[in-house]
């Protein structure tokens, strides 16, 4: 607890320190012995070598001792491992969905966010999965990570001890925007979290479109502020004329409702000039698409 | 211990080399058997059902064909060692014919499936259950790579026929054909395992 902002962080840190200390001790021992020998048995100081070919007891000693040593190290890496891997029954489950290149966190009540909010002092279990390739959720401050594998559910758990905002990184190479596949973890006082969690969906309604863009991962590649990312920006898109490549031929189209729908439903059909044809076909229902279109219309 | 004298061939060395190569082949196919066993343990029911799709008759005939070809090449090698080159050539050619027959039957099986639309990435297959997709994927890949081995074997034996004809392979110098035999038998052994795994687990 002293060693990190969550229960698991402290445990991992302890085991890291113990094992590292053992390694440093070994390294120092080997290096010093070597340096001493180099100094003492230099040609100048010791012109006549003495052939010592072997020494069985010594060989046995430095086979057996290191074996015991490494078994000890293995043990210290293992002691709390079961604890770290097995979430308590009452842990609050949160689904984590990774995709190229954004995160979605889904709470039990179905609400989805792109920032992970957790209460301090309550165990949280993250259930990880991915929609496309392998990603990995890494919370450096908590010293834990686990891969998000498509078609599989993996998990992590922790109990935040301190409030604060921490980085979340993707640490499994997943393509172009891997370096930017980051998010934030906000550990909030339990009461604050409660309040946030109780907030009614309606409050968010207003921004349903933006909400969708965020949670569906569109903003992993697009922006709403006019700067291009992997894909073109959404700002000013609606109603503008776009040069696209359709079936290898270039043409210009006006970005209307139908165009946006086609872009989402069948991203490869019209590929915007100057951009790679990498947009995935994401699962979006008709209503959701409608919301998105409505929202895009407002982005002038 | 043998020191390689100029120009003299080290027959035992050559044989060792071949065996070492076969060990690598064991692990090469081992990777596929690993996949097979994992997916079979994950989808036992589908594997069971899909195996029924296989044509047991053709598969059994093919097994017999390959086993017989193994006999032929073994005889051909013994014949060389005994100096009866004519006999050896006859049996080598017979081996090749058996190999071709094997590939022929295999292609009948494949094309029968392909016309039914079952092949990797086909619309029909992709609509099937996960276990089925994997089963047929493994079927095509494993028998396909095995088939490539058979094909290579046929090519090599053909050149052995040529070497026997030209007197390059003799009673004293038969490493080449001996090693070819080892290879051919190995390919046979792989099939001995493929056969139950794909045809008999119904």
């Amino acid at each position: 607890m002293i060693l990190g902002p969550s229960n698991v962080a402290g445990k991992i840190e302890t085991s890291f320190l113990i094992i590292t200390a053992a390694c440093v001790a070994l390294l120092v021992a080997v290096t010093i012995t070597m340096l001493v020998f180099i100094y003492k048995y230099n040609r100048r100081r010791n012109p006549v070598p003495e052939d010592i070919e072997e020494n069985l007891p010594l060989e046995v000693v430095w086979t057996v001792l290191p074996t015991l040593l490494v078994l000890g190290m293995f043990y210290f890496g293992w002691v709390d491992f079961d604890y770290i891997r097995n979430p308590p029954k009452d842990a609050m489950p949160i689904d984590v969905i990774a995709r190229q290149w954004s995160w979605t966190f889904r709470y039990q009540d179905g609400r989805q966010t792109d920032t992970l909010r957790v209460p301090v002092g309550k165990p949280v279990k993250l259930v990880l999965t991915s929609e496309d390739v392998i990603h990995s959720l890494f919370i450096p401050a908590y010293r834990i990570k686990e891969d998000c594998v498509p078609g599989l559910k993996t998990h992590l758990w922790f109990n935040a001890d301190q409030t604060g905002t921490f980085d979340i990184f993707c640490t499994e190479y997943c393509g172009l925007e891997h370096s930017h596949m980051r998010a934030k973890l906000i550990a909030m006082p339990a009461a604050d979290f409660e309040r946030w969690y109780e907030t009614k969906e309606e409050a968010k309604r207003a921004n349903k479109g933006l909400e969708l863009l965020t949670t569906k991962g569109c903003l992993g590649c697009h922006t709403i502020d006019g700067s291009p990312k992997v894909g073109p920006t959404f700002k000013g898109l609606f109603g503008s004329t776009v040069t696209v490549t359709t079936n290898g031929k270039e043409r210009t189209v006006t970005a209307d409702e139908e165009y946006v729908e086609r872009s989402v439903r069948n991203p490869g059909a019209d590929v915007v000039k100057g951009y790679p044809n990498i947009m995935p076909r994401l699962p979006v229902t008709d209503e959701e698409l409608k919301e998105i279109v409505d929202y895009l219309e407002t982005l002038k | 211990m043998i020191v390689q004298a100029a120009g003299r061939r080290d027959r035992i060395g050559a044989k060792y080399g071949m065996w070492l190569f076969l060990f690598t082949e064991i692990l090469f196919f081992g990777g596929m058997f690993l996949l097979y066993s994992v997916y079979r343990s994950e989808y036992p029911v589908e594997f069971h059902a899909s195996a029924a799709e296989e044509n047991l008759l053709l598969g059994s005939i093919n097994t017999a064909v390959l086993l017989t070809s193994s006999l032929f090449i073994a005889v051909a090698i013994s014949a060389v060692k005994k100096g009866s080159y004519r006999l050896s050539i006859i049996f080598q050619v017979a081996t090749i014919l058996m190999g071709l027959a094997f590939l022929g039957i295999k292609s009948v099986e494949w094309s029968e499936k392909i016309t039914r639309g079952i092949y990797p990435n086909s619309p029909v297959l992709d609509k099937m259950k996960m276990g089925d997709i994997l089963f047929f994927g493994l079927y095509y890949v494993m028998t396909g790579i095995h088939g490539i081995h058979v094909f290579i074997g046929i090519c090599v034996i053909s050149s052995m026929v040529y070497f026997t004809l030209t007197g390059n392979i003799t009673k004293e110098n038969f490493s080449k054909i001996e090693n070819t035999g080892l290879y051919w038998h190995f390919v046979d052994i792989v099939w001995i395992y493929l056969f139950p795994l794909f045809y008999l687990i119904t």
Partner: protein
Amino acid sequence: MENTASEYESFYHGKGKYKGILSWLMSTDHKRIGIQYLVALLTFFSVGVLLGLLIRLSLIAPGKFIGQETYNRVFSVHGIIMIFLFIIPGVPVAFGNFFLPILIGARDVAFPRLNRFTWWIYLAGATLVVFSLFAAGGAPDTGWTFYAPYSIRAKANITLAVTGVFVLGFSSILTGINFVTTIHRLRAPGMTWFKLPLFVWTLYATGWVQLLATPVLAITLVFIILGRVFGVGFFDPSKGGDPILYEHLFWTYSHPAVYIMVLPAMGIISEVIPVFARKKIFGYKAVAFSAIGIASVGYFVWGHHMFTSGMSDTARIIFSFITFLVAVPSGIKIFNWVSTLYKGSIVGSAPIYFALTFIFLFSIGGLTGLIIGSLEPNLQLHGTYFIVAHFHYVMFGGAGFAILTALHYWFPKMFGRMYPERPAKIGWFILFIGFNLLYFSMFILGYEGMPRRYFDYPPRYFPLHLVSTIGSWILAIGLAIIAGNLLRALFKGPKAPADPWGGRTLEWTIPSPPPTENFAETPVIRD
């Protein structure tokens, strides 16, 4: 490379059927093949090194320096070249080819023509890989690990590159077969197993690893190719496949592969230290057997690359346990090397500088390997720069320094020239400083959570990245001095005597450079 004064003909002058470049490409002489490999390896190494410098340059500050698409390709190609084209073939094909037959008193390897063929396959594979960098579609951007399903979906020239690696694997297998057979069949009379030089022992162990591990890589790559070309979805979850199985198969090869890199390197160190300590190696048998020990235990630890992959906890515990066992034979080697110095009479020539540095750097690399091999710390350190630091310490600090050792130790024998030692030592010193600046900062970075394969990073990592980049320049200067020194000596150095170091193994009994048939008559080894 002239050696006209001597009465014998060195292998550089041996007459063959062919002239000019063909006399090299068509040669079955293990020495010529070894030299060709060496040239090719160093060429690829230089390319890889330039890419490494580019990575560092781009990481000098957070932000877009070369752009992320380029960056992804650069680190992938850097890894692919360094691993598959340089360090895995590395010691065996260059120094193994040249010295294995000489060390056991043979005229050539068991299958000289196969050896030449293997060299061509290497060239073919390398060509494919290089081609994949420039062909339309762009260089691979998957990292050297080609993790599915990304590698199956990515648009770049993965198929080409993977085919190239497949072909290179073939070449590696054939080298292994050739060496193992050679060691079994072609030892000179009296050269019993326990009289074999230790370098031969490590080549023997390596040969087996090449034989038994590489095929697994081959079949894995075939699956990738089939996945890309025919849509066979063995690793595609939407077709029932299991991506983690890819990792199992890949690491079943790629962990043993790290011992392909480092075992022969250890063999070189075992040769060099006794020569310059002026005594026999301490605990010959222990060192010999530990090579076999590393090779065999090392086959079963691959899962330590997958501690956070979603693998079962049971498997994690088993793999971590076996991982720790590998440390024991490695330790035995280290301890015996250090003890060899005891009561020796150490001559401070250039090769031993590199050899002793190997011990130090490899120990750091290996011991940090244990830290990340522990279950809990791995949760934190996997996928961070800590890993990057670990493997550069073992690969560059270990295998790489062993190659530098071998270059300095065998240079006179291979090229018949001596090099001046002063520049070599100056270069060594600068290299050593640069190396530690460059890679030690990465340990700290990784500990602080900097993920690998990131081209852009939060500003708090900036200072250490800066140190690291500066280290890379210092390192470059050191390497350049060393390379320049050797290159100059190649043309201008004084002629080398048969045995400049006082070595006791067979290669020092014949002239430098060796004659085509190695030995005038088959040596007989007596006590």
